[in-house]
């Protein structure tokens, strides 16, 4: 696997170590991009800071909590409109954003009194909320504000509240990934084991590394409920603060995004003997395998099989409708961390797409090992790319669509390539069987949007056709398909609802009586 040097980065020679092309007959022992290193000066990359990783990725999806940033208001930028981790309590954690609004005078004279005032104000404003997380930022860390001491004082003054302090200022790591690590460890050190849950099932899990993007967690919860599994906590999407204090009582940790949450699973394994089972919730085959594994662990595989059969029969013909129309389309799979390996192989196998490049903004070398193993030969793998490298790769690889974040996504659009939001999604959820069809539908809509016929013309030089009539996606996608595919009576387009989540929330589930006191897992 030869390392790849971008023209744009010739003046930053260290960058050559961060990109490789997967060559024929080569394996991971030949080359691996560097990862999780400080961004090289001169390279303007697209990463977030360690505070952002702790708060905006992991902390804030907790739903019944006031989340306060202790710092300048600008640190709270990534809240309302850039995040889509919904919750079943009317999205409290998304609707209300709290910051102490530290100014120059506080930097000079200290911001602890300001923090205390803010904490009281927030609890007074939302008397039904009794839980809080507080996040350190660069400015308040540098002036030495003791957030722990203030939190302790408030907890003494208000005995009915509980506060978690996350000491992960922006500079506490090379990227948001440093913050993921810090908040994982802080949570298990400070909070796990401080609440004893009621155990209602013989089968008890924590669902870890799942952030309920547009309802992903609720889709998976539906499967677990149908299997009679008690989900003690979700770390952290749609998760409750007190549920997460009780993680030590689960029999199994089901880990989805290992990049952001393996640390707490590893610690729960070491401290409480709870095993870690890594799963893939995306794609029919990986999801089916995951449900089977959880079923096997508890001796209830038949319940998993029933779900797999029902969901596959319902949704497979719809997935295949899109697969016929997406075959061979070239994709740059450019997410933040774990989706490069969650998606790399399965979008090729189940949607017919061709992954021409994978990248990660904050992944570690382990994520690249997984991603490169899963993508096909010829793919270009890039760690922490800068914008010019991204543009150069687009020019070189000529993708039909790019899956990435909204900021690099806008750059892709300017280069004339449609993008799908790999973090917040376009019209998710994307997990589950129906979700996977929704993802295929969004990809189809992006690639075949008739808008590109016009938007990719350059009015300063291209001739603008005036005789083109009305076009639809289907007219474009079906033009070259054989008639037996176009007229296949089994295949059909997605026919689910605009938002499938309200129906899930209204569902009731069969009761599986508890057999006996559940065994406590032991190493």
């Amino acid at each position, binding site marked *: 696997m030869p390392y790849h040097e971008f023209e744009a980065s010739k003046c930053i020679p260290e960058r050559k170590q961060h990109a490789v092309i997967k060559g024929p007959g080569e*394996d*991971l*022992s030949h*080359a*691996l991009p*560097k990862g*999780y290193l400080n961004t090289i000066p001169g390279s303007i990359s697209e990463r977030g800071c360690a505070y952002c990783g702790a708060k905006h990725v992991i902390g804030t999806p907790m739903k019944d909590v006031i989340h306060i940033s202790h710092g300048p208001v600008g640190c709270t930028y990534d809240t309302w409109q850039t995040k889509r981790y919904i919750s079943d309590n009317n999205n409290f954690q998304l609707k209300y954003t709290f910051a102490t609004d530290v100014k120059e005078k506080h930097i000079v004279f200290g911001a602890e009194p300001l923090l205390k005032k803010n904490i009281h104000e927030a609890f007074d404003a939302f008397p039904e909320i009794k839980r809080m997380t507080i996040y350190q930022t660069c400015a308040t860390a540098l002036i030495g504000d003791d957030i722990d001491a203030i939190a302790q004082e408030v907890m003494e003054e208000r005995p009915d509240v509980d506060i978690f302090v996350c000491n992960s200022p922006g500079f506490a790591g090379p990227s948001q990934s440093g913050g993921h690590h810090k908040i994982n460890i802080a949570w298990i050190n400070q909070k796990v084991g401080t609440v004893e849950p009621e155990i209602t099932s013989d089968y008890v899990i924590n669902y870890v590394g799942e952030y309920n993007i547009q309802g992903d967690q609720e889709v998976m919860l539906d499967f677990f409920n149908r299997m009679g599994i008690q989900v003690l906590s979700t770390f952290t999407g749609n998760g409750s603060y007190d549920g997460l204090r009780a993680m030590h009582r689960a*029999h*199994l940790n089901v880990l989805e995004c*290992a990049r952001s949450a*393996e*640390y707490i699973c*590893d*610690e729960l*394994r070491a401290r409480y*003997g*709870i*095993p*870690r*089972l*890594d*799963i*893939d919730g995306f794609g029919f085959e*990986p999801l089916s*395998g995951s449900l*089977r*594994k959880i079923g*096997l*662990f508890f001796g209830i595989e038949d319940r998993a099989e029933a779900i797999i059969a029902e969901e596959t029969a319902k949704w497979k013909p719809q997935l295949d409708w899109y697969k016929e129309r997406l075959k061979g389309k070239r994709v740059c799979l450019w997410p933040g961390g774990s989706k490069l*390996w969650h998606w790399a*192989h399965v979008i090729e196998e189940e949607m017919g797409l061709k992954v021409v490049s994978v990248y990660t903004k904050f992944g*570690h*070398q*382990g994520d690249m*090992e*997984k991603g490169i*193993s*899963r993508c096909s030969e010829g793919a270009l793998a890039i760690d922490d790319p800068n914008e010019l490298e991204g543009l150069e790769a687009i020019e070189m690889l000529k993708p039909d669509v790019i899956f990435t974040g909204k900021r690099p996504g806008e750059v892709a659009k300017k280069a004339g390539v449609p993008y799908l939001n790999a973090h917040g999604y376009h019209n998710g959820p994307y997990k589950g069987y129906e979700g996977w069809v929704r993802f295929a539908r969004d990809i189809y809509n992006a690639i075949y949007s008739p808008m590109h016929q016009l938007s990719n013309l350059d009015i300063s030089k291209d001739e603008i056709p005036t005789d083109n009539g009305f076009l639809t996606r289907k007219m474009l996608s079906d033009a070259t398909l054989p008639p037996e595919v176009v007229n296949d009576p089994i295949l059909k387009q997605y026919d689910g609802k605009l938002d499938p989540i309200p129906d899930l929330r209204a569902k009731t589930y069969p009761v599986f009586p508890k057999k006996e006191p559940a065994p406590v*897992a*032991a*190493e």
Partner: protein
Amino acid sequence: MEDLTKDRVEQLLNYIMKKCLWQFNSRAWDRRKQNAGILGQTAQLLCGETPVHETANDKCYWVDAVLLAREYRARFPWINELSHDEIKALIKALHERLDFLTIDGSLNEELTVQHY
């Protein structure tokens, strides 16, 4: 290693590298335990034995081993024709190759970090 065995090991290895995640835990010591735990039980299952799992972690390895053994039988029908000794030798060679790719020959510089 003769060509046929080598080719078969690569087929089995390729399945793990594409479809599984357990071989990629983030530290070398953990990968070694995972690889040994899961492949050991996979060999037993393919030979018709019933692995004993005493701890919850063993049981978790067993879950991955069951899925792997099933997939191997379905995707590589030739495995059903092998004797138990041949299966054990094949999985041993696979184990060595997997340990090399994910641990001993890995270029991942975080494998030896002391903490998680």
